[in-house]
């Protein structure tokens, strides 16, 4: 079963616009990570935010984490056609292992 859910399931925007994806999870976590997947192949790590952090930036990416609400959001600014992909959040629980529990994913389409 999935750890959480992502919202929306699909998002279509024009190039240059911002894209926001939300993730909710169920259990206490050590950290939360966002991954990108192109065309059903391997996943690429985008950003990691620890449970004691509230916001993190990496290039055009901004991630927030609200542990009280068990939710996170990923903002991609000034989107490009090359950002078209599926985006997944994944949580790591505090059990001494770094097994990833993935959400259901958001399919982002950026229209040129």
């Amino acid at each position, binding site marked *: *079963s*999935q750890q959480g859910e992502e919202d929306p399931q699909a998002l279509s925007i024009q190039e240059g616009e911002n894209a926001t994806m939300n993730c909710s999870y169920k259990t206490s976590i050590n950290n939360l990570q966002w991954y990108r997947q192109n065309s*059903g192949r391997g996943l690429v790590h985008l950003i990691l935010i620890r449970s004691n952090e509230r916001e993190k930036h990496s290039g055009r990416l901004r991630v927030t984490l609200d542990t009280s609400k068990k939710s996170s959001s990923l903002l991609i600014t000034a989107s490009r056609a090359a950002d078209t992909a599926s985006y997944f959040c994944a949580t790591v629980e505090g059990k001494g292992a*770094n097994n*990833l529990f993935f959400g259901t994913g958001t399919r982002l389409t950026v229209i040129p």
Partner: protein
Amino acid sequence: DAGVTQSPTHLIKTRGQQVTLRCSPISGHKSVSWYQQVLGQGPQFIFQYYEKEERGRGNFPDRFSARQFPNYSSELNVNALLLGDSALYLCASSLWGYTEAFFGQGTRLTVV
């Protein structure tokens, strides 16, 4: 530097057969995890191995097994294949601890 490599990339098997998937981690990474991704869903955790020992197991039947070799490469075995085992099987390597995972391109298994 070579990333995570998986073989084969595609595989077609008949119901009831057995399959072995292979994974070579990034040099220096001692942890290898396996995930199953059914079309349209997020990856689901199957196994994690560290230093040749199983450190985590997801909710999968005993038909699924894995092992890690002294060079930290890994094999995932699935016996008595079912149609529902058709999926993308992803291998990820990482440093031990709460860190990011690096994924291979996956093995697409089709059971007919």
